């Protein structure tokens, strides 16, 4: 049990022990490269599985079975789709701003890579153990706004530009309640370090102490990753596919990878901050972590295939008139709670 729990730590220790000095620069560099590869593999695997799961959930909610042709019960469908994407022609529109057009998907793809690197996947299993973990996570994920705008602008297409502008309006608005909802947890733990936050949830996960913050985080998180009912950025009926309209083949695939990677990252942060991360009885920590992430991702899909798209003005109203005051109220209540707790406990 303990061995299984520390399986990856033991492997890491073994790799380090192959070097003459386990803490040398070369050992660290090797471990960093391995961590990098693991994070990339996580994103690619997540995209492969989640795209199919999304289609399955879409099918199940409408009493269908979803993809069912390729492989057992259709579970190889995404592989075929990915191969098809690789075979597509790489088209750059004539009037496009070529450099921006080509950089945008790379930035989108690199962001979940950077954010997933600070998530603790188990006890002492964060690829990079940052003291400013949450801060870094939010700062990096905010850059995706820029990438969407670059894609929208660089495509030289009215729909792309509209989608890009919508992305900016939406993601900047929802960034604020997202940030504020996490502030309550930071006030309790007195730490930005994700590992410390998970350890602080040893007795009770923060969803119990901060239910309002969790609800706000999930709503704002869904809006942050541009998923229905907040998918105005790529609203097919209005702006074709938003910033992705002019992209083909692998570049478009990168957008998709980035999108599902971002979704995984947001869910992973939710699991870490509110659901107790890798803490849990019986099973190894990393199994618990991925189970919690899976539950949140499933919930996001469930929401996506239940609700219709929200209107643009309602989107802004929800962010500024509902979520923001509620998140500030949550910070106030948390502060009050901490104050009372200290009075009672005499701290």
């Amino acid at each position: 049990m303990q061995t299984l729990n520390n399986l990856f730590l033991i492997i890491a220790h073994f790799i380090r022990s192959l070097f003459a000095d386990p803490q040398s620069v070369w050992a660290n560099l090797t471990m960093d490269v391995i961590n990098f590869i693991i994070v990339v593999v996580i994103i690619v695997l997540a995209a492969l599985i989640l795209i199919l799961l999304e289609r399955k959930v879409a099918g199940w909610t409408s009493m269908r079975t979803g993809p069912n042709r390729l492989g057992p019960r259709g579970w190889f469908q995404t592989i075929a789709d990915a191969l098809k994407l690789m075979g597509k022609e790489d088209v750059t529109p004539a009037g496009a701003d070529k450099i921006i057009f080509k950089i945008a998907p790379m930035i989108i793809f690199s962001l979940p890579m950077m954010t997933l690197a600070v998530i603790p996947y188990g006890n002492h299993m964060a690829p990079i153990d940052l003291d400013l973990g949450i801060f870094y996570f939010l700062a990096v994920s905010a850059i995706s706004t820029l990438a969407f705008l670059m894609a929208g602008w660089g495509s030289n297409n009215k729909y792309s530009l509209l989608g890009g502008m919508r992305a900016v309006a939406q993601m900047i608005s929802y960034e604020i309640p997202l940030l504020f909802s996490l502030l309550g947890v930071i006030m309790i733990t007195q730490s930005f370090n994700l590992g410390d936050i998970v350890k602080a949830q040893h007795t009770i996960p923060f969803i119990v102490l901060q239910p309002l913050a969790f609800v706000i985080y999930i709503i704002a998180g869904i809006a942050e990753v541009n998923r229905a009912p907040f998918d105005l950025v790529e609203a097919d009926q209005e702006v074709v596919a938003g910033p992705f309209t002019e992209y083909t083949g692998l570049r478009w695939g990168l957008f998709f990878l980035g999108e599902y990677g971002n979704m995984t990252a947001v869910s992973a942060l939710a699991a870490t901050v509110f659901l107790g991360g890798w803490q849990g009885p019986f099973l190894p920590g990393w199994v618990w972590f991925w189970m919690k992430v899976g539950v949140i991702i499933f919930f996001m899909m469930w929401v996506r295939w239940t609700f219709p798209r929200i209107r643009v003005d309602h989107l802004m109203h929800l962010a500024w008139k509902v979520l923001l005051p509620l998140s500030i109220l949550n910070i106030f209540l948390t502060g009050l709670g901490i104050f009372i707790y200290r009075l009672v406990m005499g701290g």
Partner: protein
Amino acid sequence: MFGKGLFQGLGITFKRMVGPNITEFYPEQKPVLPSRVRSSMGLQREKCICCNMCAMACPNGVIKLTGEKDEESKKRVLKSYHMDLGRCLFCGLCTEACPTKALTVTQEYENAVFEADDMKWDMIARAERKGKEG
């Protein structure tokens, strides 16, 4: 209450998710057809008396048939029977007109073809092929 509808919606989709799905796995599992489906034509050659009633009943002129007199039994025997399925409505008037029930509407539905000419059916050949296949 505010937000009640949201939870109702989630509940409904969840029920659909865990409930049965209605997808038909068509090529692997054939659908159960209603008893009155009319989707194809079948001919029993030995029953046909070449009276030409079916051809006359047909509103679209789908059926063309020829017969010849058999010297031994002094009966008319079918020589050729062609149907242009591209124009057939499957209205069933021909089968109603048939005095010996040689021509019947059947429930085969996999009738798609690649060429327009393939829709001109030689009913005798089809009947023989079907007899061979069982």
